[in-house]
């Protein structure tokens, strides 16, 4: 067998635009309507989703602006220019830990959801392993190939989200949306926080922008690309509230999966639509996991330049798998998820803002 090389390790700005929704849409949306419904009354959560989404768009723009300031320079190199080499290396490693944990979290979550709804008796370790092996295979290959998969899967994913929302309209009750604007300020604030946290993932831009030839337009375009997940989430959230009402949606572990189970194609010849939904959503989660694992590998490789890509992948994979298998139950998994989101807030929200400010103050710039 001979390796087939796809072009080179360069991507276009269009691939980045697809990568943003691809990494954001993952397991988060399966439970997001619950979290939002618990905090808000009626359908008020739409305000929070828009606010959180707006904030996420702004952060995407910040991160991309920072990375685009130094065209064709890796994160560790431009961070060295801004805040000395040792700190840059530490930052890179810490961020790579974030993406490593995130990969574990996605693997474990999809394994748990599949076990709950699809594989009653299959051990969760095996479900996770078979999914993760595919991810490892994907990441071992060409990076351009991964981006092409994003391009291929994303329209299908958005389409299925649309189908789920449209074909549940039969159960949609306007009464469930009321009362309007009766949420307390605290409710909005905490729902906005949760919605913003579900849009994390723009951190990949810190590393991927370096691969783009002409990154000038990247900040604006990736920020605009963030609109896609925001509207997908909004659509699914409103459908969940309309169909289940806030009380029941806030009570279900995975309201989005339950919504998919409610789908009725007119004519009653098609039951169990959720099987199709699962197939497509596993594609979405594959994209998220693969991108996240790829960024981990990319980040570590930028520090340990002598190690080959495959060597890094085969060293990291067991760690990812063990971390994924560590949580004992649903509570532990959510705890891991929570830890990762707060960790990410530090390293992909606070750190890029600081770096950008310091870079501006010191006037450091990449060569254009």
């Amino acid at each position: 067998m001979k390796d087939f090389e796809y072009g080179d390790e360069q991507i276009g700005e269009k691939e980045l635009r697809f990568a943003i929704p691809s990494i954001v849409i993952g397991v988060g949306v399966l439970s997001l309507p619950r979290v939002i419904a618990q905090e808000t009354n009626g359908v008020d959560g739409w305000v929070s989703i828009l606010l959180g989404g707006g904030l996420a768009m702004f952060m995407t723009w910040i991160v991309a602006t920072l990375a685009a300031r130094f065209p064709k320079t890796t994160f560790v190199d431009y961070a060295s220019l801004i805040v000395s080499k040792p700190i840059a290396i530490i930052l890179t490693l810490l961020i790579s830990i974030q993406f490593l944990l995130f990969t574990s979290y996605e693997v474990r979550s999809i394994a748990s959801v599949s076990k709950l709804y699809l594989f009653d008796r299959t051990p969760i370790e095996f479900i996770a392993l078979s999914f993760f092996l595919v991810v490892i295979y994907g990441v071992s290959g060409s990076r351009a190939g991964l981006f092409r998969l994003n391009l291929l899967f994303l329209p299908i994913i958005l389409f299925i989200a649309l189908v789920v929302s449209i074909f549940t309209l039969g159960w949609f009750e306007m009464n469930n949306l009321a009362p309007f604007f009766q949420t307390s300020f605290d409710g909005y604030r905490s729902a906005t926080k949760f919605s913003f946290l579900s849009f994390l993932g723009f951190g990949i831009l810190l590393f991927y922008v370096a691969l783009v030839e002409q990154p000038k337009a990247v900040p604006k375009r990736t920020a605009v690309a963030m609109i896609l997940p925001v509207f997908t989430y909004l659509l699914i959230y409103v459908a969940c509230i309309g169909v289940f009402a806030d009380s029941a949606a806030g009570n279900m572990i995975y309201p989005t999966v339950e919504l998919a189970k409610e789908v009725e194609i007119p004519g009653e010849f098609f039951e169990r639509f959720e099987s199709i939904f699962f197939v497509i959503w596993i594609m979405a989660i594959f994209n998220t996991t693969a991108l996240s694992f790829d960024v981990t590998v990319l980040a570590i490789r930028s520090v340990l330049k002598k190690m080959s890509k495959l060597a890094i992948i085969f060293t990291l994979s067991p760690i990812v798998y063990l971390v994924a298998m560590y949580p004992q139950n649903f509570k532990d998994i959510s705890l891991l998820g929570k830890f990762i989101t707060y960790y990410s807030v530090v390293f992909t929200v606070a750190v890029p803002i600081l770096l950008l400010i310091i870079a501006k103050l010191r006037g450091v710039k990449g060569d254009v």
Partner: protein
Amino acid sequence: MYRCHLILLSFVIFLVLSGCWDRVEIEQRGFVVGVAIDLAEEQSGGASDGDQQIELTLQLANPRGLGSTTTGGGQQKAFLNISGTGSSIFEINRDMAKQTSRTPFYEHLKVIIVSKELAQKPGLFSKTMDTFIRDPEMRRSVKVLVAEGKSKNFLNMESEQEKLPSLKIESIIKNTRKNASIIEPVRIGKVHQLLLNRNSYVLPTISLVNNKLKDEGVAVLHGKSNVLVGTLNKTETKGLNFIKGETSSGVFHVNVDGDSVIYEIVNAKSKIQCEAKSKDDLKFTVSIEMEGNIAEDYGSKDDLIDERYLKKVESKIEQEIKNIAQQTIDKVQKELKVDVLGFDRRLRRTDYDLWEQVRKNWDRGDNYFAKSDVNVEANAIVRITGVADQTKSGIIE
């Protein structure tokens, strides 16, 4: 060397790909289409935890009996009913595996029938619903019904068109369009929502009269205590549908000047308005608007085209609507004191702060619902009077 690897690899692939932990052959799957839940006949002494003993009956579809008559299959019954007794649904369910060679599989469940007696026991209804809401195999679109008498008898009904009694029940309760005194089927997802909100609600009831299925009337369940507190008869159910604006068709029989006029409902809407000054001064106005056609006119004195006569017919119909709605309100508000009319949700929308004050004492405790004023308004419109004016001459000799 390379070849050796390939052979090894293919062995690994065979090992990994040929296994399937969750494989259940389709012949071994028992497709549960209907579930009936009753109180157990007698208490077996073994119930140490003090839980009420219940009897669960599952209706499994028998694919062989379902085949069309020409393909053979002989005289096999299309279904198989199995029963078990215990204190929890899930335990009974596991016990039942001993009774049948097929594992019960719930993804195609259509109806859950609960006996009236069971729903009258405090808290038991929500306990039995729990597993149907919790289990990932269950669907939220399963319909829930209350049965007069033993619910498992309904799973043994004879029927000509449908081979499976469960499917027959399901298709009958879906026929809300032809009759104003049947309510929309209630799905278990809705039950979950109502239980969480502590809203009181109604469930359709079915009964067997001379081994024929009748689906009229509803059972009223109280939200807080979750107990069946009463039932509404045919007319009261009609009124309930009028008030909630859920009538899509039906027939009215009114008497105008000593002659019958039959009015066919085409479209009905209702609007509940709420005037909330304080928690002791709540006023609800139900406005019912109905559109319909004259289907039959036995009178021969007046012209239907005559505006005065038509107005008279309309006002008679309005009177009738008001009567029926008032009957329901009297029963629900004064007798049962349970809000199944959706006034709570109306108030919640109109004045959320006031609702927060009264929600704990809405249809329990101080019962602000029973104390509130309710006013019914009706407006009936006759759209079409048919293609002929009169069948026989109106001139009296």
